[in-house]
């Protein structure tokens, strides 16, 4: 008895839907990038030669890099605190992690605008201590803070999935064989969490590359990342060709990141923990 065709039939509506709403438009974007305003690879040549786009790409790479590192480090510490905490504490921690995750990114970004603004509480404290006001808004610092806040739960939950799968007896064995708590962490625990850290890094980096709302609001037009730049090209100045080239390239970078990650570790194992 072969149930394969019947299972395939069950999955078919999903595949058709995906094809219609996802693959077809995607192909459309690809098509525009080589046909607008005239057929050929002219758009790609223009993009690669443009110093303005180079600057945007560099800004995007820098902000994504810093944000990813911060999110993964903070996520790791939170995940470690979580697995070490008592059951009651864990419930509390999970609530504090999930509630922001369920909140609209727009609301969270505006909240940061309030907190980091010139007359916000952070600057209030800074000024009351006798220092000058800090510029934390409409610059890269603000964007990094807002994006990190958004991405930490993704990093934390991915790393946590890996940590939760580590057999407690392994750290016990390490202690029993003569390694103190610090050596046990460095030689046994940390190496075992690396696949989770790697998965978290890839996930966060991929999400960061496509950020749009946070850089617009917290960057205030002065920090332009790729997402905003593409949107400007298409919506404001109607350069569909350039916009779709950038979108294609951005997607290529994401796919390459995932492919590189897949080569380094068994992604299927990580995401099915």
């Amino acid at each position, binding site marked *: 008895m072969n149930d394969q065709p019947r299972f395939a039939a069950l999955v078919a509506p999903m595949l058709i839907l995906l094809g219609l709403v996802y693959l077809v438009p995607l192909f459309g974007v690809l098509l525009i990038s080589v046909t607008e305003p005239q057929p050929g690879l002219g758009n790609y040549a223009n993009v690669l030669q443009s110093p303005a786009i180079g600057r945007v790409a560099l800004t995007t790479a820098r902000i994504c890099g810093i944000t990813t590192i911060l999110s993964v480090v903070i996520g790791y510490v939170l995940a470690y605190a979580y697995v070490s905490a008592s059951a009651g504490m864990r419930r509390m921690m999970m609530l504090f992690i999930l509630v922001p995750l369920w909140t609209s990114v727009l609301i969270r970004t505006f909240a940061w605008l309030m907190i980091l603004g010139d007359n916000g509480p952070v600057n209030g404290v800074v000024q009351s201590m006798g220092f000058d006001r800090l510029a934390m808004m409409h610059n890269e610092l603000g964007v990094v803070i807002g994006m990190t806040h958004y991405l930490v739960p993704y990093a934390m939950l991915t790393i946590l999935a890996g940590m939760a799968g580590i057999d407690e007896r392994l750290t016990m064995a390490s202690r029993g064989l*003569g390694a103190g708590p610090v050596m046990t962490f460095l030689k046994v625990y940390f190496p*075992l969490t690396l696949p989770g850290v790697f998965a978290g890094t890839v996930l966060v980096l991929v999400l960061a590359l496509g950020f749009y709302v946070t850089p617009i609001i917290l960057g205030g037009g002065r920090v332009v990342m790729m997402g905003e730049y593409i949107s400007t090209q298409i919506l404001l100045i109607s350069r569909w060709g350039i916009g779709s080239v950038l979108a294609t390239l951005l997607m290529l970078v994401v796919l390459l990141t995932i492919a590189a990650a897949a080569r380094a570790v068994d992604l299927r194992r990580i995401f099915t923990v």
Partner: protein
Amino acid sequence: MKAARVEVGGKPVGTPANDRSGSRGVNAPVLLSVRNIVKRYGSAVAVDDICLDVREGELLTMLGPSGSGKTTLLMMLAGFVAPTQGEMLFEGANVAPLPPEKRNFGMVFQGYALFPHLSVFDNVAFPLRIRRQPKEVVREKVLSVLKLVHMEAYAERMPKALSGGQQQRVALARAIVFDPKVLLLDEPLGALDRQLRASLQDELKALHRRLGTTFVCVTHDQEEAMSMSDRVVVMREGRIVQIGEPAAIYSRPQTRFVANFLGESNILHAPVVGSEGGKTVIRIAGCRVPVGGATNAAGEACLSIRPEHVAIEYTAPNGGTDDIALEGHVRDVTFVGADYRVHIETEAGPIIARCRTSEQARIPAPGDQVWARCRASAVWRVISD
């Protein structure tokens, strides 16, 4: 259970005088001494005031059903669980407050706990590298200990590429490579299938003999405990019920629980009618029979008879001997290879007889009228608990 005060065969149980000498470690000095250790989890008592001396070089097994506190006791010896109360003396010094890494005991975990990110070689090298041994020494020691457990060909493998038995050997190698004075083993063969278990029992025993290290082992498998150990500690509900050599515990169980937990036992009840020469005299099947074992109380005695001591007769035995004969009929017969297990319904209660297949002139059948016969010396009085 006031086990400590009960006397068996006129001598206190668990003292060297009660053990057969000749086995290694039995008369050796005490290496590790557990003094009045208590472990409570809230109001639950996991280990209840245990005193135990582990002698240098012996293979001691703590045996008990789950929940008997044997694993908690082992975890306290290893330093992973802090005792609520009491002391643990190792070579005279109290090690109870020390963390596991300061105790220098080897430990083999249930499920082996090999580091999955390290090769077999690196797993075994781990305790040496932690102790900052020079590279050449590490290499030499790791390879020699891998050879000892017949795993030298697998040094570069990763643990998940090994079978259960091979993982067990690597775990053992890793635990002994730094020459600990005590090796703690938590259900070392528990995860293996039956056949492999038997061969690894022999290997473990040979390794123990060769190293001369003190082994403290935890198991719930009585066969494993009996076949490997110099001494067995039978535990129940957080307390020690009996300590001694396997053969001594088997032939002279102190309580009904021990008689049933170590091997199989027929438990019969008979009235006590007197005592003579340190033995209880009971009345069974119309005869007065002096029996060894517990001498604690008058009233009704609880008796243990091992099935292999029961023989089957098809004619009424003529009296006048030391033997006890209980009349009855066969209810069921089970063939188990070397033996027939014969269930007999006798006048004194149900009895199981284990008869050698090779020695039966006639195979008993259900309904047969038989006499279950055994020597009076095979009847042993136990405390009913």
